[in-house]
């Protein structure tokens, strides 16, 4: 049985990744956690501007900040996304059962007609 925890808000996450810079940040962090300054480096924008993007991703639950000694680290946070469509998994079995029942109902009817 699939356990479902709190799910990410689909609109918040979609809005977060609708921006090219933020997608690039996610792609970078998919390779592993990194210092904020290292992630920011390839982007031609101020650190302040960069951090605004980071905050959007944080609010969407996609990244989290931590500290390693003096370093501020960014990493991907998978839980919200893994669980996002948990409810759909629950219904997959439900709908398969219903369609099986529909099929069997008419298959039996056809048998009777013969």
């Amino acid at each position, binding site marked *: 049985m699939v356990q479902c925890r709190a799910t990410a808000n689909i609109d918040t996450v979609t809005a977060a990744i609708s921006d090219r810079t933020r997608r690039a940040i996610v792609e970078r962090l998919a390779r592993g956690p990194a210092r904020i300054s290292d992630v920011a480096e390839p982007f031609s924008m101020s650190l302040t501007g960069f951090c605004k993007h980071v905050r959007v991703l944080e609010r969407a639950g996609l990244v989290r900040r931590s500290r390693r000694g003096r370093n501020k680290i960014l990493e991907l946070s998978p839980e919200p996304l893994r669980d*996002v469509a948990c409810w*759909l998994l629950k219904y997959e079995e439900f*709908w398969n059962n219903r369609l099986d029942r529909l099929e069997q109902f008419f298959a039996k*009817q*056809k048998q009777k007609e013969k």
Partner: protein
Amino acid sequence: MNFVDITIARTIPASAEKIFDVWIDPKSPGGPWFGAERVILDPVVDGLFYFAFKHEGRIWPHYGRFTQVDRPRLVEYTWMSEATKGAESIVTFTLEPRGEQTEVTLRHSGVPDDELGRRHKEGWTWILSALADAFASRRSATSQT
């Protein structure tokens, strides 16, 4: 499954009209409402339903609103429950004749099949594949330690 919707198809040995009528009949043993603890159903556009379904020892109440009722081609309704966290998901049931049989398709989605919904879907597909790569490589890294 792409985590935004599920789509299931079946070929049913009957006409679209007969299948359609079973699908919106709360009492039919072939229909999707059968076996419920309670069903209240008004299968017309803007009609509502209540469907209480017993699963794993408890009752799961469901509420919805019919958005399209186009006999014998299509019926669509919103679908809301604790499992959807109160959000309106969308169930679309379409019927396509195939000679004496009918191909039926059930789609249950978190988003409507319009431009916004399709963009949601693209976004999700992208991010899930990005994360899948990330976590596959992380798992193989930790298993080496």
